[in-house]
């Protein structure tokens, strides 16, 4: 029995009794053994007989005209097979981009940011390639750098991109603004009159790096048919393909892409990195070409999270009801658009947070500057807004003399509430309940550094083994935050996925094979696909095929969408396979037993059974020698664009919510912070794999912790050059920096989603940061309007 919603999309399971290894169980990763033995083949592990190594030469300045490029010395280096510049590109298509095709494959006459690719080299040893690249002579003539809103929109500002023809060019107030999205609802001027208390704030969010551990890498192998086989770590194979093919001048079917092992992504692999360069070198030299960034290059090789300036005004009545929110969010998109327009849409539409506010006036913009390009990172525009609106909520609660959690609960949205875009939240939105739960968790003991014994355990104190304090000057603080994130691609995007499912008898056992192009980046999608197939087809054995472009697009592994959308596609394809198998069974065996025609039939334990539990046939007998295979696209509910003037529109597919409580201890003398505990409560609709769900929440929480107290790419405001492109100078949390993260998972089904599930990955990254900031404010009494917090912000030194 398949339950189907009005638009024909299947929604819920009814496959009888739970199948062992099916959904809802914490089954283990199918790639786990390979990953713990070192055999799992990541992109940087690829190897091919006679392969060459590719190396990119990147600009040493942020904004300059290229006067000349001399490659002769590089080409003359023994071991070098090719040196390519813009002039060597094979077709007229020489730019690419996720939303706007504005990014040069190799710089043409001008570089717009520090680290922009200028030339590529192929050589027989990576060091030879590096040295040859260093011998390329590039003469630059400096141009003035644009680094912020004032310099970007000055009347005489140099335009980052002249003669724009992209869809946003017509409505932006200045050509150095990528996209502008207002959200206007009600009448803020009038609502302000009702406010008893008004608080304003200006907030700064630093530039965060995804810092996935597996560096950008891939192997391009030229094929006999003139095409190329590309083994690559990415988040969306088909989006890469769409951008690569026209630059190479090849039809898409001559570029065969296979996902190799992906060492994390977090948004940083949505844009192309070395894909086109490796293919160009392979096609030019006729040899396989491997490219692997080192960590230094990786900091230049992908977009970052948009740094932001946020200006907020909130009003409330004496009894604690929000009257209005007015906000302006300025995101720095850097030199190229990447996914800036969509980030703007998110920041604007989610800019109020999970609260009921009738009167809203928000404007979000993304700038073109000479800073590093910014685009997708876990949380995608919602993160920056959450940092600011949650600081405002605490400020308001303080002014009203209310408990910050109670104040939030009083204004929390719930199912049926209206977003400021006019969209009705039509599935559970347990904001108040998540706050209640996270507050109800037991607190870690006071002076926990003494718990182990009489002497202070330095490792439990701010400053740790640096032996900076034994507890003197250490003050505890507690802070709360909650956030709202959209799930799936928004604003009218055709956000589909494709799954191919095959069911056959192998060695006397029914085996299901699932083939999708979903990028497994660590999140565990492969685990969940196998669980879905077991549940829907009642089999034990499931094989997950490697992701490649031999099957239809799965869409991106981003926006917390893959379990929903590709999981939905796998479920849908399984249901179609099941129907076909049952039809075959009815034809073959229907005459033997009337239940074939009259009963609800299920697939369980490798058998066809009635809903009453009677076994009608072995699946193996129904399948015989003939496999059943179906490839099918699947779509969630459509969305629509936001109105360009008012921001009104049913723009999002689904919302997800998480709340955090942070407990910190601050050495107020030295400004050192130790986060003691970071508790999270999140609604996941349905936990298909509880172990993986917890892992996602803890991982997302930790990335939020990082940008609260340590992570920031420092860009010199005078030169727009990156000053800390290494793990020595860009710090991500270690196991010593990371506290225990108790997780409370709520499962309130969204009836529109497969199994009622709700995308999990991003929401915990939102509220983690403002919760930590709130806790530090609670400990120190300081205002702290920027993140990350540094010691000098706490000591005033």
């Amino acid at each position: 029995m398949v339950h189907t919603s009005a638009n024909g999309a299947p929604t819920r399971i009814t496959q009888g009794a739970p199948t062992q290894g099916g959904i809802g169980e914490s089954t283990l990763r199918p790639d786990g053994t390979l990953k713990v033995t070192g055999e799992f083949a990541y992109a940087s592990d690829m190897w091919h007989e006679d392969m060459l190594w590719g190396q990119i030469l990147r600009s040493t300045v942020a904004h300059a005209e290229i006067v000349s490029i001399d490659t002769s010395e590089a080409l003359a280096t023994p071991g070098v097979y090719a040196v390519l510049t813009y002039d060597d590109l094979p077709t007229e298509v020489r730019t690419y981009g996720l939303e706007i095709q504005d990014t040069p494959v190799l710089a043409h006459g001008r570089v717009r940011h520090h680290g922009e690719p200028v030339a590529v080299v192929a050589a027989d040893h990576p060091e030879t390639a590096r040295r040859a690249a260093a011998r390329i002579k590039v003469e630059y003539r400096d141009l003035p750098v644009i680094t912020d809103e004032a310099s970007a929109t000055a009347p005489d500002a140099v335009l980052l991109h002249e003669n724009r023809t992209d869809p946003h060019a017509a409505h932006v107030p200045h050509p150095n603004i990528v996209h502008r999205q207002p959200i206007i609802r009600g009448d803020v001027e009038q609502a302000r009159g009702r406010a008893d208390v008004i608080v304003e704030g200006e907030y700064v969010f630093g530039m965060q790096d995804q810092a996935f551990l597996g560096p950008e890498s891939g192997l391009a192998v030229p094929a006999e048919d003139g095409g190329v086989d590309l083994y690559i770590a990415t988040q969306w194979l088909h989006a890469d393909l769409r951008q690569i093919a026209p630059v190479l001048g090849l039809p898409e079917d001559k570029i065969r892409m296979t996902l190799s092992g992906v060492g994390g992504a977090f948004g940083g692999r949505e844009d192309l990195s070395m894909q086109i360069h490796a293919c160009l070198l392979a096609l030019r030299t006729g040899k396989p070409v491997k490219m692997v960034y080192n960590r230094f290059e990786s900091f230049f090789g992908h977009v970052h999270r948009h740094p932001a300036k946020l200006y907020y005004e909130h009003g409330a009545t004496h009894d604690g009801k929000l009257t209005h929110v007015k906000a302006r969010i300025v995101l720095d998109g850097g030199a190229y658009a990447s996914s800036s327009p969509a980030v703007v849409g998110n920041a604007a539409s989610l800019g109020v947070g999970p609260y009921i506010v009738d009167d809203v006036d928000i404007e979000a913009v993304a700038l073109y500057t000479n800073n590093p390009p910014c685009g997708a990172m876990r949380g995608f525009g919602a993160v920056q807004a959450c940092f600011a609106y949650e600081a405002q909520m605490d400020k308001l609660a303080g002014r009203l003399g209310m408990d910050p959690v109670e104040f939030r609960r009083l204004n929390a949205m719930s199912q049926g509430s209206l977003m400021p875009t006019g969209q009705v939240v039509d599935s559970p939105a347990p904001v108040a309940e998540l706050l209640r739960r996270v507050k109800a968790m037991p607190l870690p003991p006071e002076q926990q550094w003494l718990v182990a014994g009489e002497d202070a355990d330095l490792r439990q104190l701010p400053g740790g083994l640096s032996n900076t304090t034994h507890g003197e000057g250490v003050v505890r603080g507690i802070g709360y935050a909650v956030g709202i994130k959209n799930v799936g691609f928004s604003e009218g995007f055709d956000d589909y996925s494709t799954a191919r499912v095959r069911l056959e008898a192998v060695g006397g056992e029914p085996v299901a094979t699932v083939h999708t192009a979903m990028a497994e980046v660590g999140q565990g999608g492969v685990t969940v696909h196998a669980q879905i197939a077991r549940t829907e087809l009642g089999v034990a054995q499931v094989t997950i095929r490697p992701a490649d472009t031999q099957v239809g697009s799965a869409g991106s592994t981003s926006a917390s969408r893959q379990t929903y959308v590709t999981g939905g596609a796998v479920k849908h394809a399984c249901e179609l396979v099941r129907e076909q198998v049952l039809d075959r069974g009815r034809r073959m065996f229907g005459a033997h037993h009337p239940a074939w025609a009259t009963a609800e039939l299920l697939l369980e334990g490798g058998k066809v059974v009635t809903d009453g539990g009677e076994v009608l046939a072995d699946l193996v007998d129904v399948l015989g020698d003939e496999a059943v295979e179906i490839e099918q696209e699947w779509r969630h509910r459509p969305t629509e664009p936001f109105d360009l003037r008012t921001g009104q529109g049913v723009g999002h597919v689904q919302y997800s919510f998480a709340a955090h409580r942070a407990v910190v201890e601050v050495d107020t003398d030295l400004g050192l912070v130790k986060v003691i505990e970071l508790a999270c409560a999140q609604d996941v609709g349905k936990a298909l794999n509880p172990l993986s769900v917890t892992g996602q929440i803890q991982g997302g929480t930790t990335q939020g912790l990082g940008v609260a107290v340590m992570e920031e790419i420092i860009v010199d405001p005078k030169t727009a050059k990156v000053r800390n492109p290494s793990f020595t100078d860009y710090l991500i949390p270690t196991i010593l920096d990371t506290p225990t993260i108790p997780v409370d998972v709520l499962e309130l089904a969204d009836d529109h989603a497969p199994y009622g599930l709700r995308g999990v990955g991003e929401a915990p990254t939102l509220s983690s940061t403002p919760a930590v900031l709130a806790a530090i404010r609670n400990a120190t009494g300081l205002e702290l309007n920027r993140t990350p917090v540094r010691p000098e912000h706490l000591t005033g030194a």
Partner: protein
Amino acid sequence: MRVNFTVNGRPQQADDVWEGESLLYVLRERLGLPGSKNACEQGECGSCTVRLDGVPVCSCLVAAGQAEGSEIVTVEGLAEYARQRACGTGGCDTSAECGTSGDEARRWSAHGTDSATGEGTELAPIQQAFIDAGAVQCGFCTPGLLVAADEMLERNPNPTDADIREALSGNLCRCTGYEKIMDAVRLAAARQGEGA
């Protein structure tokens, strides 16, 4: 130059090694042992951790020539190393496979039963614990963490949480938030205790 050392119990020889090559590069690109990872090549992330004459080191910071004559254990040899430690015997013969070719990668497919049963693959207790506890997501930090955690449990079979955090503080993980890694090490320690 030529470099000779023992990797996972087997004598290895690498020829035409450029003097600037790291031990990590020679393991990954010349000896077909890509299990040790290259996340930073700056000695900051620990993903390339191997045992060099018993001591955990970042193999990216060891010049290949410095390893001349040494005994090296990588993640590929961890199961055998742990087995022999448990048996208290010496000498082993773990063979090194050649690197991962594009062709092999194309044929790779995950099997639903791989991890659940560990069929056909002998694992060290710490490896099994990482799988069981959900400590593996993208897995790029995993080899280095396994080598480091195994070494810690060898020295300190009953670590406190603070001991675990201190011992693993040189190994970055970006996916898990470390909670499941803590679980895995506690689990391995507990199982080790039961088995003793």
